[in-house]
């Protein structure tokens, strides 16, 4: 099955200060293999910050996040075992969808699906060889999501994954997420709308 079977994400008493303002005060969270976590809360409450701290882009003032695997030693750093899809797609407009996915795959290693198949899964088979600059916002979003499928990483951090997606694409995304959870992966999403999957752990951040 999958190598991610026994992973769990542990976030312990995370404090984050940005620009002199304390954004997160002692956030703790435990996510088990096959579990979806949803971070909710009003705008500016620190949802994106939490995801960026877990991905390792931002250093926390105190506390830590770790992705542990039972019985595994010498784990790669957390940053090398997460996929991050943020507000920015991380796509090059001048490159085609296939080239973008291929590059993302080479960058992160651990190949799972070839770019063509990953783009098939997000129903973009017809624009594989079109520069991403010509795609709509929703299509670009789908290309960014196809990156999740191309390279195999246990933890997915999704920041507002539903943005710009139409109804059909939302259903598709839920399918992809459920599939990843089924393989023993973990998904932590910052979102305003629940994805509606069973067994979801909700983490509500409150304004200070």
């Amino acid at each position, binding site marked *: 099955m999958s190598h991610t079977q026994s992973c769990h994400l542990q976030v312990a008493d995370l404090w984050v200060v940005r620009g002199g303002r304390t954004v997160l005060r002692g956030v703790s969270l435990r996510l088990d293999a096959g579990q979806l976590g949803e971070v909710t809360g009003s705008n500016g409450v620190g949802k994106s910050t939490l995801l960026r701290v877990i991905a390792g882009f931002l250093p926390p003032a105190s506390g830590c996040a770790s992705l542990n695997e039972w019985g595994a030693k010498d784990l790669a750093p957390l940053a090398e075992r997460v996929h991050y899809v943020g507000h920015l797609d991380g796509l090059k407009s001048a490159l085609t969808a296939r080239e973008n996915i291929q590059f993302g795959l080479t*960058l992160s290693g651990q190949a799972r699906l070839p770019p063509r198949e990953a783009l098939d899964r997000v129903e973009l088979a017809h624009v594989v060889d079109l520069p991403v600059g010509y795609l709509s916002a929703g299509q670009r979003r789908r290309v960014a999501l196809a990156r999740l499928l191309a390279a195999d990483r246990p933890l997915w951090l999704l920041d507002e994954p539903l943005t710009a997606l139409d109804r059909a694409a939302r259903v598709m995304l839920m399918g992809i997420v459920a599939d990843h959870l089924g393989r023993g992966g973990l998904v932590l999403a910052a979102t305003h709308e629940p994805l509606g999957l069973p067994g979801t752990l909700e983490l509500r951040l409150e304004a200070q």
Partner: protein
Amino acid sequence: MTDTLRAVFYRDLVLSRRIGGGGSLAIIFFLGLVTIVPFAIGPDLNLLSRIGPAILWLGAFLATLLGLDRLFQADHEDGSLDQMLLSPAPLELVVLVKCLAHWCATGLPLVILSPLFGLMLALDGPALGGVTVSLLVGTPALTFLGAIGAALTVTLRRGGLLLSILVVPLAVPVMIFSVSAASAAASGTVSFLTPFLILCALGLASFALAPIAAAAALRGAAE
């Protein structure tokens, strides 16, 4: 990891050739500068051939600076930089490879075309050789030093000017020794090798140190 670095190199080369990449912009700028100087100086061939190496070097320096502000900014703006931070390849090596790709796309054509442009400045054979060799060693050093400035200004919307201000002092030693090497080759009275070896040392030092500095600045920018 080698695959990753090769992919970064290849991607940056492809991007510099496609629309919006601006890879050939530096060459056209270089040509424009070298073309206009003889008009500004007037029909004095002796003067022109004496200051020719310096003009070529100034042109190459400005042309290199021109494209550097987009070196990391484009990746920062579209979120590619975040993806690179999640890669197992160390950011320092990614920066190094990006600089090399940038130099191959903008610096190397300048070096190749400089003998041709040198003819427009009435340079003779030894002078052409000296300038070309000094450019071959010196322009990568400029690119690496410029990468530090590019990484520091990556979050600024119009960081190009600040980048130039940051990089100019760092580029002074490169400028001094490259132009003196080129002039030495032209005049033949002083040793070419002494300034040239110092230039090589500067190039190697920037090759080794600048990626570390630039990567540190980029990590700060990701916050």
